[in-house]
């Protein structure tokens, strides 16, 4: 356990991994975001209803979330590299087979299921391996990697439109599939760390740690020796549960503003091209927010949990103020604030997860967290839609999102208090342990 965490590269080849993760983020999440461009084409070709066609994206997102824990447990068993390469092949096959376009059900199976599985198997290990490679500079590394999504999404919009106009939607799918094959290239670059999980699990039974376990009692898990399987014991840990609830509430609110920004903008009388520019502003400040937050978190001036609480509070403030906008300029300014703080939150929330559960359980935690968070993502938009219908105004959706975020911040504060209390408790514990050093190391383990 200690051998891996005490010596992450924190640089060097780690930066290659960051760039590779940046590309994987782009080739997965950005493709998913821009898939809406195919919507009308596919709907008209198969002569189906809009709701039936939108199931494609619903299936992709559902499989993406459900596949995350599977991907995590596969990471633990095999290497991150293998899972990412598998994901790349799955995503590639999904899009390439979608080119055949035999029927709507075929599209569900290929661009829905296969693509979702591929994205899940690529995204989850990519996020995870960045955290494994870094400890001090983890926040910065995570932020840079996650910025890939924004950078690619910004260019994919016009690029996909051009592809569709040149090759039709079928040809465009084929070419995008080919581009996604590059996920495998990125995957090959993700060299497993010398002290990987597999090595740990075989060592932890025989070797005893060389006696410096006292300093990291909280972060080190008291989990059973079974690293090879998925660690379900995580749900017993109060910190993880608190963070998971925060995740649900945050997810409930995150999907709402992008959904209602466009209709709100139209209802204020802003026309199509200006509304599209709002979305571009959102993408650009998101990108800036992620990088800036990563750099700031890297300075280690504030604890990541505190930073996350601050960013969440700032997002909820922007969301509560956004409905006050009544012209384009105000709306653009508030959208800019919202996008910026959204970027900061996304950049830092994975790092906080790593800080909450510790590195040995991180892979399992990531998968489980994504799975639990997805419930919020499924509940959020319909609930917001209901509230908007009841209130008769899109602004109500923004108020709901802001309120949910304030609630989630409450859970973060509770989590922070719990962690601080545990730290204070363990500090009083370490004093007797230091005196136990001369005793045999097995005795040390018992005290821990």
């Amino acid at each position: 356990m200690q051998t891996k965490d005490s010596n992450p590269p924190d640089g060097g080849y780690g930066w290659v991994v960051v760039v590779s993760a940046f590309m994987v983020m782009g080739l997965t999440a950005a493709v998913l975001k821009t898939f809406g461009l195919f919507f009308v084409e596919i709907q008209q070709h198969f002569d189906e209803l809009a709701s039936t066609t939108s199931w494609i994206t619903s299936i992709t997102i559902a499989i993406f979330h459900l596949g995350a824990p599977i991907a995590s447990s596969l990471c633990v068993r095999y290497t991150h590299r293998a899972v990412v390469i598998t994901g790349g092949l799955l995503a590639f096959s999904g899009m390439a087979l979608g080119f055949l376009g035999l029927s709507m059900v075929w599209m569900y199976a290929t661009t829905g299921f296969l693509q979702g599985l591929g994205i899940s198997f690529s995204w989850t290990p990519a996020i995870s391996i960045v955290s494994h490679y870094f400890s001090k500079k983890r926040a910065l590394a995570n932020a840079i990697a996650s910025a890939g999504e924004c950078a690619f999404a910004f260019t994919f919009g016009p690029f996909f439109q051009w592809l569709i106009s040149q090759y039709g939607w079928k040809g465009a799918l084929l070419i995008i599939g080919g581009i996604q094959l590059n996920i495998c290239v990125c995957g090959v670059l993700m060299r497993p760390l010398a002290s990987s999980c597999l090595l740990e699990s075989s060592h932890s039974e025989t070797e005893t740690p060389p006696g410096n376990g006292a300093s990291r009692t909280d972060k080190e898990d008291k989990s059973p020796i079974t690293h090879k399987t998925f660690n379900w014991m995580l749900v017993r840990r109060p910190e993880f549960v608190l963070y998971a609830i925060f995740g649900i509430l945050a997810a409930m609110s995150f999907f709402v503003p992008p959904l209602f920004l466009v209709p709100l903008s139209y209802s204020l009388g802003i026309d199509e091209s200006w509304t599209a520019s709002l979305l571009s502003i959102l993408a650009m400040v998101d990108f800036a927010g992620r990088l800036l937050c990563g750099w700031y978190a890297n300075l280690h001036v504030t604890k990541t949990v505190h930073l996350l609480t601050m960013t969440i509070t700032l997002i909820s403030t922007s969301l509560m103020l956004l409905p006050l906008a009544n012209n384009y300029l105000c709306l653009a300014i508030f959208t800019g604030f919202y996008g910026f703080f959204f970027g900061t939150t996304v950049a830092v929330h994975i790092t906080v997860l790593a800080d909450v559960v510790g590195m040995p359980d991180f892979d399992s935690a990531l998968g489980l967290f994504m799975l639990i968070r997805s419930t919020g993502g499924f509940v959020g938009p319909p609930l917001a839609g209901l509230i908007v219908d009841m209130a008769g105004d899109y602004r109500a959706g923004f108020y709901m999102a802001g309120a949910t975020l304030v609630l989630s911040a409450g859970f973060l504060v509770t989590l922070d208090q719990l962690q601080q209390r545990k730290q204070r408790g363990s500090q009083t514990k370490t004093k007797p342990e230091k005196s136990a050093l001369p005793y045999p190391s097995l005795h040390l383990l018992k005290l821990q």
Partner: protein
Amino acid sequence: QFYKLLLGVSGISVEKNITLDSATRIELSCRLDDKHFHFKSVQVTWKRGNETIRHINKTENSWSIQLTILDNSKLGSYNCTLKGEQELSAVFHLQVPKIEGKEKAIVSYEGDTAVMICKSSGHTPIAWTWYMTNGSEQIAINDSLLADKYAINRMSANVTHLKISKLTKEDGGVYWCEAAFELGKSKGKLKLKVLSIMVPLKPFLAIVVEAVILVAIVFLCEMYSKKRAKRA
């Protein structure tokens, strides 16, 4: 039905588009904005092209004409001109409903099926006809004659679909969907592009080859550096 235009500032043309699909009686009225203008004596003329319309109903500040539109010949632009100290004018454009085609070309592949859709906004046409362009001629598409190639379906009152199966390169080009109304006809333009499967396949294969080559390079580099590390 009653349509009115307010004449205000001179120099700026005031216009209104009126869409008519079936025979109807309408009244067009031009009114002087009394906030801005108080003309002592006003001369009003209503014209359609060169033809002057005689029966003008005058009320306090407005002058109107009544028209019975029975066919295409009565459609067009009706102009009212008010001459006083200044000259003000307004135009009413009476038109059949416009049919929108598609700006972007529909791209499809050889052997595949393409669906072309035309919609009429608001007004229901009596009939739809599809034309394909052969050189400079427009040829009507007869779907009963070539039933396995063309299928024309009226999906709803305002929407028509043309389905072309077993596409070939020659099927590409400009298509027109024509909506027939009581008062006239209106056309929408659509473009169809038929590509062979090789067209997207070439960039696809190029990208796949590039990915495979990169994977091979990375693997070889890694094995090489591992061997060096072992030797050292």
